[in-house]
């Protein structure tokens, strides 16, 4: 589903940072991959490169066989197939919850109003916001907003979902409700790439864990291997600090 080959990303402003250094990874359809690592390790940058919110400096990234770094690729078509959920939700504050979920369906997928509405209602019910469709995002709690954001991304019928620290901006009591939605999604067989600090989620849901540090993938493996028997010293140090 996703192949990243020798991806480099260098930021030049305000000063030169090698955010990604020779990252090669592949994610199969139906797989849930959790990316963890200390802050500044490049895991968010890696995720954002996968739908070209960040333009990789060099390397190749294939989404469903399409080279997204090729300038001839219509990136908007690719992005419609790749859902993304952000740390700060980024709901559209001037649109109601329902409009947040229907807008891109109508504009990008060219769905009819009724179809978009039906799809949105089904998804909002699924994430537990079915009773608040006409309120505005700023009247919802953080957890509710994030669930709407997940529904918004799912409304495009994406083949892959990218989660960029979806629970990091939430109050502790709201983290659970968002993780529950994500777990349900994983059970349905959605291909997911999740950058998170929630080790419980990684252990329970991930098919594979990727550990990144200083812009490179240090270690990857199953959760059992990763949490019980890590091979790399850097991984051991990281785990000892957070667990």
């Amino acid at each position, binding site marked *: 589903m996703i192949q990243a080959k020798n991806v480099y990303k260098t930021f030049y402003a305000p000063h030169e940072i090698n955010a990604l250094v020779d990252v090669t990874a592949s994610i199969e359809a139906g797989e849930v991959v959790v990316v963890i690592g200390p802050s500044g390790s490049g895991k968010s940058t890696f995720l954002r490169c996968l739908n070209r919110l960040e333009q990789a400096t060099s390397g190749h990234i294939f989404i469903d066989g399409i080279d997204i770094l090729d300038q001839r690729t219509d990136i908007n078509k690719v992005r419609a197939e790749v859902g993304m959920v952000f740390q*700060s*939700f*980024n709901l*559209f504050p001037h649109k109601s919850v329902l409009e947040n979920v229907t807008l891109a369906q109508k504009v990008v997928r060219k769905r009819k109003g009724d179809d978009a509405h039906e799809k949105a209602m089904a998804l909002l019910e699924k994430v537990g916001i079915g009773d608040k469709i006409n309120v505005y*995002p*700023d009247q919802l*709690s953080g957890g509710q*907003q994030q669930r709407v954001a997940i529904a918004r991304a799912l409304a495009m019928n994406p083949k892959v979902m990218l989660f960029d620290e979806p629970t990091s901006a939430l109050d502790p009591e709201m983290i659970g409700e968002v993780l529950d939605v994500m777990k349900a999604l994983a059970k349905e067989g959605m291909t997911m790439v999740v950058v998170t600090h929630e080790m419980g989620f990684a252990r329970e849901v991930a098919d594979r864990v990727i550990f990144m540090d200083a812009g490179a993938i240090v270690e990857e493996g199953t959760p059992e291997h990763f949490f019980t028997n890590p091979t790399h010293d850097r991984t051991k140090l990281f785990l000892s600090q957070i667990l």
Partner: protein
Amino acid sequence: MIGGPDPHTGRPVHHGRPVSSATDRPAPFSLRLVTRQEEDLNMSEENSQRITGKPANYNRWVMIFCFGVLVFLGLFYYASQKIAYNWRWNRTPIYFAYQDDIDVTSTVDGEVSSIKEDGDKVIITVKGIGEEEDYTAPAGSVRVSEGEFISPGDTLATYQKWKAGLLMIGLWITLQISVMATIFGVILGVISGLMRISDNPALRWTSIVYVELIRGSPLMVQILIWYFVLGTLINDLLAAYGIGQIPAFWYGVASLACFAGAYVSEIVRAGIQSIHRGQTEAARSLGMSYGQSMRYIILPQAMRRILPPLAGQFISLIKDSSLLGIIAIRELTKAAREAVTATLQPFEVYILLGLLYLVLTFTLSMYVQYLERRMATS
């Protein structure tokens, strides 16, 4: 940050939109449907009152203010009497509207053959040798009778008709110019503002050059260049191709629109850049194109923020139109100067002139406040 959650707490930030579940509760304060800016102002007012309350002797200070205004007006009047100025406000109404005497005169040499009443009109028919002409006038204004012999130029009827005075004509021209310049100014400004934030250097630099050129030179000079330089070139070119001339009015509109557009460009740019980057990212990650994300996500949000500075810009534009008299456009100020030449009553006319501009600008600022309120609630 309007809308969106507070990134630190994840809690929603309220900014004046009524909470639906709170409608059955009494409003904590009555100013819920105002913009954030106003709300902040009101809050600070509320706070200062909570801390200090109304100042002691509130009514006395109100009276002192009123007294001050009266003293100023009194001194003004006193000074005008000192230089022996005769106030003649009674001579000003004709510059708003006046009754004009209209004579209906014959163009035919002959005899009044018939005078027929037709409702509140009268049709006078004059018959000459080989020619016959009908004249229409209001009932009761006829000065001739049937059978009377008439020479060309003789008055058949006289009546009075209300006409717009000089200041009203000027006001109408000023209004037309301001509306046209505002429309074109917004279009220019939005295009230039979008060009300014483009990655394409040709677009970006075009916008920068435009904004810097316009902002860096006096409007008066720009008006002169538009009319006497560009106007001459364009009109001569049109004449060479046998096309009609463009009147001064449109060079006036062009100069004001270009001038306002440069400022609007910066307002639009700042407004767009003030929208959090996450909004664009969210829109683009859903597969929207740059244009779609601008149209549906960024511009509607930016619009709320740029409306107040935009209103200020267009109030300026109305006032700046007073310079257009120098290219012989008979707008309000030019009309007022003509009125002064005729009456030699500069005090009254110029004071009225100021009030008329105030009517225009105040109407606009009221309308914008209404728009702001409507946007805040929608």
